[in-house]
């Protein structure tokens, strides 16, 4: 079943230097990197960013194949972006026919946009591949800590996120099971017009939602039984501490972002 092959939010356990970094360091570095991606203007800057990405991938021991697989679902978006950029960027025309103009700027724009998106997705996948969902939410909660002062329910948000991540595999399994059960009763999910297929989803979605609500209810009861009452006064088993390596990693990413910004300013 194709459903099982979904890699979204998947974590590959490991003990590489990247796996061992503090999740906050990885989050901050990723944000710096994404900013740098959008500050970059020219081949030089993208070459630098690509080198940085390759270095981190190499250190992470994540197989490049897994990263490429992560790109598969966005191929359509990439093509769409490229086509839009090629045809709708004004500038010096190279080819023109009927109402379409292909410009030199358009081709460059399209190229950079696609490179940007690919690198952006690769770096976010790298984060989820090397960071367990639990670490990730802990990191987010800690980074967003200051927002508590203005009454943002940071703990609750991160709890919601970790529960959602936890239940993705469970729901996929459940979907698989209900699909088989309905197929055994002659339901057909694979053929027919778009309308028929949409209707065929009802026998799948109704039981799925019911079971999701039931699970949510049971989980809430289980949490209350263990005296969960929100983030107030809650302590953690695993405390997050920055180590020298984490600081270096963040600084490196920050320098990269600033450096790219400066280079971009000079049109490189």
């Amino acid at each position: 079943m194709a459903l099982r092959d979904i890699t979204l939010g998947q974590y590959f356990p490991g003990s590489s230097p990247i796996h061992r970094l503090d999740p906050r360091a990885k989050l901050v570095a990723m944000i710096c990197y994404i900013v740098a991606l959008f500050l970059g203007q020219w081949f030089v800057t993208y070459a630098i960013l690509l080198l940085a990405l390759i270095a981190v991938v190499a250190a992470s021991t994540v197989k490049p194949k897994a990263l490429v697989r992560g790109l598969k679902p966005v191929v359509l978006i990439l093509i769409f972006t490229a086509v839009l950029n090629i045809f709708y960027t004004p500038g010096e025309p190279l080819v023109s026919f009927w109402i379409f103009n292909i410009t030199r700027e358009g081709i460059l724009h399209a190229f950079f946009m696609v490179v940007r998106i690919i690198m952006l997705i690769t770096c976010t996948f790298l984060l989820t591949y090397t960071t367990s969902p639990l670490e990730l939410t802990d990191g987010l909660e800690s980074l967003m800590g200051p927002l508590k002062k203005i009454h943002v329910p940071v703990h609750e948000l991160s709890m919601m996120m970790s529960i959602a991540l936890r239940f993705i595999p469970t729901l996929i399994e459940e979907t698989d099971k209900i699909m088989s059960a309905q197929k055994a009763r002659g339901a057909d999910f694979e053929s027919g017009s778009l309308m028929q297929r949409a209707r065929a989803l009802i026998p799948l979605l109704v039981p799925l939602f019911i079971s999701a609500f039931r699970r949510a209810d049971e989980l809430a009861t289980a949490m209350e039984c263990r005296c969960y009452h929100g983030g107030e006064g809650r302590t953690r088993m695993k405390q997050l501490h920055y180590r020298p390596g984490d600081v270096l990693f963040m600084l490196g990413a920050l320098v990269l972002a600033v450096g790219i910004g400066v280079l971009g300013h000079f049109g490189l």
Partner: protein
Amino acid sequence: MGAIIETRQLTHTYSQGTPFEHTALDSVDFSAQPGEYLAIIGRTGSGKSTLIQHLNGLLKPTSGQVLFDGTDIWESKERTRQVRCQVGLVFQYPEYQLFEETVYQDIAFGPKNMGLDPDEVDRRVRQSARFVGLEPGVLEKSPFDLSGGQKRRVAIAGVIAMEPQVLVLDEPTAGLDPSGSARILDNIRTYHQEKNACIILVSHSMEEVAREAGRLVVIHQGTIPFSGPPESVFTHGEELESMGLGVPAMTRVFARLRSMGVDLPASVYTIPQAREAVLAALHRREGK
């Protein structure tokens, strides 16, 4: 008599070509006769769920064949669809697949998918509701307002309404109280007798299968080490024990008595049989 459903050298490997590769079934030859009541027993992860999902074409064999009425079920797309209606499969906890507004509509889902005309659908819905002991009043209720045992009976009726020649049930009594379990087993027996259908019951309760089925098929680590009538399968007490299955409590009691030197038959596995065997032994002793 030819087998109604048969597997030949059936092998199934999950996630082939990945680090999670796992062979769930290994060259399994399994067959069931028309009108037979047989039980598949095996512990969790032995491959029994994988096997039954092959019987109606929900899983495709990695290698080997599944034959229904002598022809391969993967011969063509239409054949697979046709077999899905002939081999009814009731999953574990089937009540979680109910979705319609009324019990009637939910039971009618299968027959409607088969493209039957409304009169025939109506007849089948009412008949299968009767098979599982649902009162006509229940048909107009929402399935979500029913008790757990009733929901399960509605789900089973939904499969029975397709009038399959082979009815496969995966642990139909899991999580029910003894009276609920007994009712479900009664319903299945009624269907078996009235329709002369082949029943394949998957279970790990030895008492249950010993009482209900005429033939047992033991499945262990993707293979079938023994099959046959209950009394012959239960003579492999120690092997069954080592597979984490065990034998019915009565068989254990009798094996112990025999090892203590009491003259009793080895093929006892239900309480009425035990009663007769003990009475016969007492008579013999008095006769001396």
